[in-house]
């Protein structure tokens, strides 16, 4: 417990003990104020109904204004009790005066619910736009102003707003401008579908320009048989070119693009892709797809892909399907599987999965504060996040304590039957606000054509350009090991604007081609990037190369000029292995200390009798970052540690959530890292940042 705050409380209690005053009984006073407010509300309704010509009906429909303050002042200054009708009369008079003043005020004659800076939002701002009469409203008017102008809420605490996501080590220009999302949607609406060769050529050209600009060279093209093997392995999971070509009746001598196109027309490719996309959509562990419901989902997905169905619409149909237990239709069974996986944990984990899997956005930051560096301005507002949480109210997954199974419940019909439930959330400075169920952009779900809040959200998601980007980004990751554009700005800073342009182009064409994921995969697997040869680094090179050489290699990796396969060893890509590797390589071997390199050297322990010395090499990311987090990373961690509003667990979450592709395991490591660093929180967070970054950058083997 903080001593400072204990002392503050002790001071107060001591003062009360020695000097009073003791807490007064405010029951009657509160009762009178409440009664007066209710009466004033009734009066306002009557006034609205009679449509007085000189009173703004919108104003009268606002919550009541003066009574609480009026009642408070009287009852505090005098013990004389006011009868409710007098209070009501006073309140009504005050309301009328306020209304008349409001309508007469030249700058506020228009709607109070205008955008930011409108008349309704001036409670904490300078007074020019505030009509004199509204001062009567007192504290109640604050609420009214907020209700009339939700956009003004964040303005109430500008000095204390956290901005942890504008990472200081982002040296590139921001990839997304506020108006970009809208423009993207317009572009996609009007885009003409291009020929596949034009799309592939455009990707090749973009990356050739990127490599030239940053001074890296591509690793060269794979030999044709190796390339075909790679294509088969990645697209249908087969290893033998000869056997597979025969069984699928594909000519192995075809050129890259033609070979990929033929392969993607096979049912095997559709089935394989369905599993990969389904896995990216809802689960981290592909084995979960082997559950009974999971196979139904992948089967439907496979049919949708092989039939050339709009993938977004397919996902929409799953997300809005019936979740009741009695329904046994395949689509409903698949929907229950998807929601069980999406909603397991709590609603915030569900939001994280929705954001990263369907909307190409890391939404975990927005839970606590607006995220200025979000990939989506629409979803960058804390209010949007909580509106979606409200929208998903009633969809819950709970684990059965007896057998550990997950039970999905959908109570939306019941909860939304009469009115939308309200959710409460806290601003960085501790203020509590409320949000109602709205789709991003601020439209109430019941104003849409959807039959349920879930369906409204599903329709919005499927039609959003963000989902197009998400599908492209995920598909890119399936083929290249990493997202084309990271979901958090500022971590991977190499050529982000140019890569974003490629993502936009591909997302636009994906939509223009009827969101056929087979076409998307065909384009990507036909590019020159995909045909790059892997670079291998010998053990001697690992030990002797300079940092500069590794930095250049890493730059080439990040820019997709070199396929990433540099981590060696059994599980070099796993987080645990990365950490273990770091610990073992953190020392300096005397026998290797004189080598012309600044690399971290391993602590070589003598092998036991009969055992060979096995020296695994770390990944490039480790080598480049060993012992030297960048100044910007240190600044970021300092900033995080200085955010006293966040608990330790939230700080750890913040670091981990920078990389959505890393699963929840790092959260379990925080205590061990603290112990490892003798309780040094900064070093622990820096290690964690390095670990998740390194892990996220490594492709699946």
């Amino acid at each position, binding site marked *: 417990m903080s001593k400072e*705050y*204990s002392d503050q*409380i002790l001071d107060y209690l001591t003062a009360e003990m020695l000097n009073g005053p003791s807490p007064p009984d405010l029951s009657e006073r*509160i009762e009178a104020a*409440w*009664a007066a407010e209710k009466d004033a509300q009734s009066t306002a309704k009557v006034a609205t109904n009679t449509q007085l010509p000189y009173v703004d009906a919108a104003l009268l429909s606002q919550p009541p204004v003066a009574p609480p303050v009026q009642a408070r002042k009287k009852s505090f200054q005098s013990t004389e009790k006011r009868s409710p009708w007098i209070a009501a009369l006073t309140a009504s008079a005050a309301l009328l005066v306020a209304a008349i003043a409001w309508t007469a005020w030249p700058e506020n004659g228009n709607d109070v619910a205008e955008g930011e800076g409108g008349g309704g939002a001036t409670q904490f701002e300078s007074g020019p736009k505030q009509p004199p009469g509204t001062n009567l409203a007192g504290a109640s008017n604050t609420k009214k102003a907020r209700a009339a102008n939700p956009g003004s809420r964040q303005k109430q605490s500008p000095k204390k707003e956290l901005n942890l996501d504008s990472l200081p080590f982002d040296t590139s220009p921001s990839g997304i401008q506020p108006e970009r999302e809208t423009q993207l949607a317009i572009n996609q609406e009007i885009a003409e579908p291009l020929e596949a060769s034009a799309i592939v050529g455009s990707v090749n050209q973009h990356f050739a320009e990127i490599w030239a600009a940053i001074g890296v060279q591509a690793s060269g093209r794979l030999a044709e048989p190796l390339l075909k093997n790679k294509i088969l392995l990645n697209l249908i999971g087969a290893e033998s070119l000869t056997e597979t070509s025969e069984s699928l009746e594909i000519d192995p001598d075809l050129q890259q693009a033609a070979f990929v196109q033929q392969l993607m027309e096979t049912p095997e490719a559709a089935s394989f892709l369905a599993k990969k996309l389904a896995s990216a959509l809802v689960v981290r562990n592909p084995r979960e797809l082997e559950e009974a419901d999971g196979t139904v989902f992948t089967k439907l997905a496979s049919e949708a892909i092989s039939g050339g169905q709009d993938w977004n619409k397919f996902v929409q149909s799953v997300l809005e399907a019936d979740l009741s237990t009695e329904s046994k239709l395949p689509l409903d069974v698949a929907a229950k599987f998807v929601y069980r996986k999406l909603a397991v944990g709590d609603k915030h984990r569900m939001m994280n999965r929705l954001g990263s899997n369907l909307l190409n956005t890391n939404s975990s930051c927005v839970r606590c504060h607006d995220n200025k560096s979000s990939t989506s301005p629409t979803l960058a507002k804390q209010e949007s996040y909580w509106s979606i949480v409200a929208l998903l109210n009633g969809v819950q997954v709970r684990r059965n304590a007896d057998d550990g199974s997950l039970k999905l419940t959908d109570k939306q019909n019941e909860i939304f039957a009469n009115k939308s439930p309200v959710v409460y959330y806290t601003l960085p400075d501790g203020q509590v606000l409320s949000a109602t169920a709205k789709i991003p952009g601020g439209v109430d779900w019941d104003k849409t054509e959807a039959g349920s809040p879930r369906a409204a959200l599903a329709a919005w998601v499927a039609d959003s350009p963000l989902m197009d980007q998400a599908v492209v980004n995920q598909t890119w990751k399936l083929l290249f090991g990493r997202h084309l554009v990271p979901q958090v700005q500022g971590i991977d800073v190499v050529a982000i604007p140019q890569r974003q342009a490629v993502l936009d182009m591909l997302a636009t064409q994906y939509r223009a081609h009827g969101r056929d994921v087979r076409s998307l995969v065909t384009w990507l697997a036909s590019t020159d990037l995909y045909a790059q040869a892997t670079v291998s680094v010998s053990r001697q090179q690992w030990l002797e190369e300079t940092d500069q050489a590794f930095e250049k290699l890493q730059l080439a990796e990040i820019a997709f000029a070199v396929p990433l396969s540099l981590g060696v060893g059994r599980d070099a890509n796993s987080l645990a292995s990365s950490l273990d590797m770091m610990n073992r390589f953190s020392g300096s071997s005397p026998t290797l200390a004189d080598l012309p390199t600044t690399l971290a050297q391993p602590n070589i322990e003598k092998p036991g009798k009969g055992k060979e010395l096995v020296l695994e090499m770390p990944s490039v990311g480790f080598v480049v970052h060993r012992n030297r987090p960048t100044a910007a990373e240190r600044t970021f961690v300092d900033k995080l540690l200085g955010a006293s509003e966040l608990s330790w667990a939230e700080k750890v979450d913040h670091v981990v959530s920078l990389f959505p592709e890393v699963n929840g395991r790092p959260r379990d490591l925080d205590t061990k890292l603290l112990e490892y660093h003798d309780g040094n929180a900064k070093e622990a967070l820096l290690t964690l940042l390095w670990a998740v970054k390194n892990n996220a950058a490594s492709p699946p083997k």
Partner: protein
Amino acid sequence: MATNGGVSKMEEDSKTAASSSGGEQVELDLTELVARHQVAVWRYLRALGAEPALADDLTQDTFLEIMRKPFTQYGDAATASYLRRVAHNLFISRRRRDVRMTVTEHAEKFESAWVRWAGFDSGNAALDALTDCFERLTERARLALRLRFSGESTRETIAGELGITEHGAKNLMQRAKAQLRDCVERKIT
């Protein structure tokens, strides 16, 4: 609380105030809510730094705020916590409006300290413990604290009364408060 028309109105409104949110919920009785939590809210505001009159006003506003919005009551502790949060918001807003500094920037830490000291019984146990611990202080320490908190005397005045230097008076009060804090914490935990 008097059972006039206002009360029945409150009770009637309380039925509509309890929102359905899918979880187990206890119907909100606003009359009971005020009776049960007003002392805690008032003390919380005072501990935050509100003057008595402001604490009165904000306590009233806190309950009015609760009444205006749908509210689900899951239990006493959750309700008390929510009320404190609303009270804290109102306090911050008032301070901003008055262009005055907020007393604490670390709402969560203050909340945590408050829960430890007074979260479960409005602070009565802490006050009882404090009264007991206060009697265990030396006469000079009690006098110094009485002068400080009752008379709001300056440190110079207190030093003069006790016949010690100003620095000595500061040390004496610091030690006395540390003793009090340790003693109360032992008793309430």
